[in-house]
């Protein structure tokens, strides 16, 4: 169907115009999905170039250190700001949160549309950095003085952050108002999906902390282009001011990614196990909100070697260790939801099961990094690189992919599961392990981050092998991931049109996005009848 007739005999609106002008949260969700997957593809290509370059000593692929640096900058910035955050809070929250609470759309649909268009403009701006002669080369962290003195175009970075930040703040206001005011009658707070709670928490974090990032990068813009000296000690400024402002946002930002990813996993695990969430109130209150409460007082663990005073480094050691308590309670609930379940395995559940492993590796390898004394050695090594890839790139991305497989029948009326899905899952899972485990090992021996060459370490042997051998293995892993991701992307596109047709609720979920809608849900989501739930209803009512 390429055009849609409207009522009262008005002229049909062409499909492209409908999408361009849409304010429907489901379509906006799909737009976020397409944008974030496009960003993932480009940033992933950067990763392949980086891995190809690091495979051997000497310069093989890139033409200069600066070119390598600009690719690495793009990879980090795009993966975090244009793939993970928009994929999780843009796509998944937009499409499914209103459905889960029985709402017909979000509170401010036109502002919602404005948010996604800001996101698209930010992507265009970021991609333009490839065609200008002075691409930004400042890493996603953008620390001054280098980001001020470099000839690279720091303004691209700042304006991209402005656009994305503004998009996120508007989204946060929109969704918080939606959840507070537009829940179906009868739906109390303790009847919300865990995914709704995690998304609400993520939006609270965005609302509170993004303004600080905006301040950090705006002052950077002023220093570089307007001659101010906020970060210049020779004129009264302070280099460390930027790092503190930046990480004050960027640590909570990891929970903006982590929490919705965990939320998706709870939905998959609860549905595929046909089980209630284990200790729901503990997962929500000390778990999710405990993380939110502590997330704002741990940022110094990103500055453990930065020259900050000793007392604050040690103070944040205590708070960083303590945040493992709410994370542990949340993780325990995730595990517990499997207990006495009746598990069936689709592709989503395979991703969810792999996420249990990924969260353990990612989370536990963070524990040494909570200690400043350990971080004095591990900081800026491949150990840190592997740690955050396990928890952000691997755990959070795999949770997102699991969510796409899980909700695929709802969005398209077709399954994406099948031989191709299973095979690409295994390619991805094996690939990420082959890529990142070697990096832990050489990281502990001192392999630095952000190095395109490591010739000074050529005589260092780890388990009888030089760093280069470990890098070769990691690059093979990256190749395996590339194949897996290409196959998976093809599978998504192919299945959207030619996949096996699915009923409205193929997994027999009790959650509203499945029980009260057709696939895909039409305008207004629930047909003519508003959703009303019983005061005893929960989305996990498998066994009363």
């Amino acid at each position, binding site marked *: 169907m390429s055009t849609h007739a409207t009522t009262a005999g008005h002229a049909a609106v062409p499909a492209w115009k409908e999408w361009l002008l849409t304010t429907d949260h489901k379509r906006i969700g799909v737009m976020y999905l397409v944008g974030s997957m496009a960003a993932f593809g480009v940033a992933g290509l950067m990763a392949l170039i980086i891995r190809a370059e690091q495979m051997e000593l000497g310069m093989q692929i890139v033409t200069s*250190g*600066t070119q390598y*640096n600009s690719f690495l900058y793009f990879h980090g910035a795009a993966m975090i700001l244009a793939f993970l955050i928009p994929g999780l809070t843009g796509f998944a929250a937009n499409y499914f949160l209103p459905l889960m609470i029985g709402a017909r759309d979000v509170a401010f649909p036109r502002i919602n549309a404005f948010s996604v268009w800001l996101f698209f403009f930010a992507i265009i701006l970021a991609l333009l950095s490839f065609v200008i002669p002075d691409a930004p*080369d400042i890493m996603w*962290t953008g620390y*001054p*003085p*280098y980001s001020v*003195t470099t000839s690279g175009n720091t303004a691209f970075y700042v304006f991209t952050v402005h656009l994305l930040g503004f998009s996120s703040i508007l989204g946060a206001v929109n969704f918080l108002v939606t959840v507070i005011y537009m829940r179906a009658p009868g739906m109390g707070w303790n009847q919300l999906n865990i995914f709704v709670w995690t998304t609400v928490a993520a939006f609270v974090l965005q609302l509170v902390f993004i303004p600080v990032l905006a301040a950090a990068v705006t002052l950077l813009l002023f220093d570089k282009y307007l001659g101010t000296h906020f970060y210049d*000690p*020779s004129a009264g400024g*302070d*280099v460390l001011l930027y790092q503190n402002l930046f990480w004050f946002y960027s640590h909570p930002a990891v929970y903006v990614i982590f929490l919705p990813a965990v939320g998706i996993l709870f939905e998959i695990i609860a549905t595929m*196990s*046909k*089980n209630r969430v*284990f*200790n729901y*109130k*503990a997962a929500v209150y000390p778990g999710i909100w405990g993380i939110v409460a502590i997330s704002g007082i741990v940022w110094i663990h990103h500055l453990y*070697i*930065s*020259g900050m005073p000793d007392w604050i480094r*040690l103070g944040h*050691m*205590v708070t960083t*260790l*303590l945040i*493992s*308590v709410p994370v542990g*309670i949340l*993780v*325990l609930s995730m595990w517990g939801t499997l207990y*006495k*379940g*009746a*598990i*069936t395995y689709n592709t989503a559940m395979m991703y969810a*099961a792999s996420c*249990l*492993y990924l969260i353990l590796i990612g989370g*536990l390898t963070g*524990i*040494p990094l909570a200690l400043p*004394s*350990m971080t*004095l*050695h591990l*900081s*800026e090594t491949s150990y840190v690189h592997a740690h955050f890839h396990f928890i952000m790139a691997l755990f959070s991305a795999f949770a997102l992919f699991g969510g796409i497989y899980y909700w695929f029948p709802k969005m398209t009326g077709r399954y994406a599961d099948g031989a191709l899905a299973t095979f690409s899952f295994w390619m991805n899972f094996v690939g990420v392990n082959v890529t990142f485990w070697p990096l832990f090992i050489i990281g*502990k*021996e*001192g392999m630095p*981050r952000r190095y395109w*060459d490591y010739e*000074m*370490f050529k005589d*260092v042997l780890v388990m009888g092998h030089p760093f280069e051998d470990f890098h070769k293995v990691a690059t093979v892993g990256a190749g395996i991931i590339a194949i897996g991701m290409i196959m998976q992307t093809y599978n998504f596109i192919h299945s959207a049109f030619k996949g096996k047709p699915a009923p409205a609720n193929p997994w027999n979920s009790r959650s509203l996005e499945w029980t009260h809608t057709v696939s895909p849900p039409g305008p207004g989501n629930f047909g003519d009848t508003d959703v009303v739930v019983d005061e005893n209803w929960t989305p996990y009512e*498998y*066994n009363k």
Partner: protein
Amino acid sequence: MRKLLSAMTGLAGATLASGQALAQEIRNPAEEWEHLWDEVMMDITIIGVIMTIAAIVMLIKYRATSPDQVGTAKKLTTVQSISFALIPAAVFMADDFYLAANGWTVWNAYRRVPENAMEVKVTAYQWYFEFEYPDGTVADGTLGDDDLPKPILVPQGQPVVFRMYSEDVLHSFGLPYYRVKEDIMPGRITYVWINTEEAQTEAILQCAEFCGENHSKMSNPIHVVPQAEFEAWLAKTAAEG
């Protein structure tokens, strides 16, 4: 709350006491780092193994045997609910305090510079380090005649503290051999000290904070050599400079 306060008081007291004891003896932070690493690895491996086994067992044991089967987990009672939050919280917090106490001790080992340490001033530039010794000799870390980074020598037996400053952008003084690094920046003087009881020619200094095009090339071997050899090198460096 009371337990928390008394644990923290005990922790503070133990730290002060251990700090006093540490000030007198010769410390080797790199060795203490390795001990702590082994302890932390053991800690996280135990947790990881328990959680992995639990996951694998449940993922297999609780597979559905028929399509309409549902889970049979019962809703927790209030007591169970609170217990399943408080008891794990207490276990995690106990582990956290154990790690914090050990981390604190090793931190002090790194941050307390021994009184008799030799002071070497380090200035970082894009893209090399410069070392100034107490007698005023300056050794620059640029490439030597053989196109390799020049080794920088320090004498065996006396701890060495590097007091560091940057003239341009952020850099970092990374010495994996000694399990230590600290950032270098304009506007502040930061420091790193090393125990030089053992002679060695393996340590590699690497810049560990992104500083631009040749960040990957900013490196020098740091050798610990007997006093006589060091003094000969120092004299030669002074003459060349």
